[in-house]
């Protein structure tokens, strides 16, 4: 017995210092990211570029909850984004909601859609991915076929409110910080551990007392909430939504690529991935405007070939002892 307590004390202090490093790192990263984005309008940096950078960080981070934490590949992830965009647009344009009052409903719409898709969570792997893609197609069709007075038809729906790029920029920043905070909490929470266990072996987790269906649902709803908010804020920022852009499969593709580039399953992975890839995209676009998609495609292929676990994922594979310190 005495032997046990002797060994337990240093472990407790070691745990405490690991925790301190973890949260210090999280605070530093959160602080640097916040200060950087807060200063963008002040220093008159490229507002649009940074708005979308935050949007992609949020999208990739939320996607990480569905994939990195829960083990799903929702190829129709854009559905949440599109439905969120139309929710805000319709509430503002047709029902004359103030934008900030409309945005929460985008989140609610995303969660509602997530609940409707919840029966697909019993599928896995490629079957889930395909069904998710099909469901996104259905969402898009449904909205396309709503009366034109509601959705604006093929011309899209103009919000008609005054464009407020700086305010919407800061709201996007709040959404991003909320998403990152949620995922930081999730990664250390009991729900997060349950999700990872279910991801690794759902049957075994069930036999260990984990309520698999419930845990999966919670993770899924978190993953559905944030892209819907992103859609709403983006609709406000651009002042227009149409089905073509709101349900563009490229949105899902970019989300997946950015999340994978950084590394699934960590908090920092999707942030680093989105940062790197969005910057890379911008540089390539500036230098080679005509073949930017080609080069970006090649860069993606190279990345997946040489760093299949993404930047942070590869780092943590090389340095497993850092897993406890890096959020």
């Amino acid at each position, binding site marked *: 017995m005495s032997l*046990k307590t002797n060994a337990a004390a240093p472990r407790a202090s070691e745990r405490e210092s690991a925790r301190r490093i973890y949260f210090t790192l999280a605070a530093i990263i959160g602080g640097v990211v916040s200060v950087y984005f807060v200063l963008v309008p002040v220093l008159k940096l490229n507002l649009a570029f940074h708005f979308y950078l935050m949007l992609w960080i949020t999208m990739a981070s939320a996607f990480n909850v569905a994939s990195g934490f829960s083990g799903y590949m929702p190829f129709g992830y854009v559905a949440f984004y599109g439905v969120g965009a139309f929710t805000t647009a319709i509430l503002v344009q047709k029902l004359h909601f103030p934008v900030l009052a409309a945005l929460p409903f985008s989140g609610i719409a995303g969660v509602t859609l997530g609940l409707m898709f919840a029966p697909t969570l019993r599928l896995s792997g490629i079957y889930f991915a395909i069904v998710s893609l099909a469901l996104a197609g259905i969402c898009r069709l449904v909205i396309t076929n709503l009366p034109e007075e509601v959705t604006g038809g093929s011309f899209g729906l103009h919000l008609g409110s005054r464009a407020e790029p700086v305010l919407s920029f800061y709201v996007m920043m709040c959404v991003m910080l909320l998403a990152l905070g949620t995922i930081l909490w999730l990664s250390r929470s*009991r729900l997060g551990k*349950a999700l*990872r266990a279910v991801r*690794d072996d759902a*049957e075994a987790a069930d036999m*260990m007392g984990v*309520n698999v269906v419930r845990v999966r649902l919670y993770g899924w709803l978190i993953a559905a909430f944030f892209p819907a908010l992103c859609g709403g804020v983006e609709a406000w920022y651009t002042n227009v939504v149409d089905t073509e852009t709101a349900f563009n499969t490229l949105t899902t593709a970019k989300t997946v690529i950015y999340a994978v580039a950084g590394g699934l399953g960590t908090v920092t992975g999707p942030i680093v991935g989105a940062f790197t890839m969005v910057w890379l995209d911008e540089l390539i676009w500036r230098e080679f405007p005509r073949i930017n998609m080609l080069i970006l495609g090649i860069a993606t292929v190279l990345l997946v070939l040489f760093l299949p676990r993404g930047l942070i994922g590869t780092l943590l594979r090389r340095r497993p002892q850092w897993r406890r310190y890096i959020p």
Partner: protein
Amino acid sequence: MSATKTTAAAIGVHGLHKRFGGLVALDGIELEARAAEVLGIIGVNGAGKTTLMNCICGIYRADRGSVSIGGRDMTGLTPHEIAHAGVGRTFQIPRVFRKMSLIDNLLVPVLDRNQTDRALIERAEAMLEQMRLIELRHNFAEELSGGQQKLLEMARMLMPEPKVVMLDEPFAGVHPTLCRFMIEQIEAIAAGGKTVLLISHDLTSIYRLSHRVAALNQGRVIAEGSVDEIRGNPAVVEAYLGA
């Protein structure tokens, strides 16, 4: 529900049937384990041992029959409900949570406990120390050897302090030194008053550890009794040699 026969046995299995397509895996199993008893289960490959365990913990749904734990009918409950009723298990081929640290692996069965994280982590560390895995506590479970994964599963099973534990081939693919260690652990578990269902091909260990033994063949219990009774039972000898 009301008609099912329940007893105060720690594990009660009555008239359990399970088919896979045309194959009858369990053919009316009757089995009881008393509290604090080690019940060994032997039988040739494909006899239905693992299927029996899967039906008891609810991951397979039996076609007919009932399972009770501590006198409580478990029929129709989900695996996690059965786990919460105090049933833990290990697997023939280890099923650890591969991309989680050893500590986190141990926390999974106790996530809904009303205890502080700190208390649970300290318990997990003590458990890893007992299983001689403490140095590897921050590694991912996939980085363990097969034998170490078996130890991890054993620790994970014990974390929620189950009343009933089921061990599926704990000695398979395990080095003799580790085997001895496993046997000591199982003896300690039994001494702690838990009911143990022990499946193994290793008759020496089964005979050493079990209070009673049941022999399965083609989904039926062909013999049941004390170690001495089973050892001399002609039906058992024939099933083993005849296979």
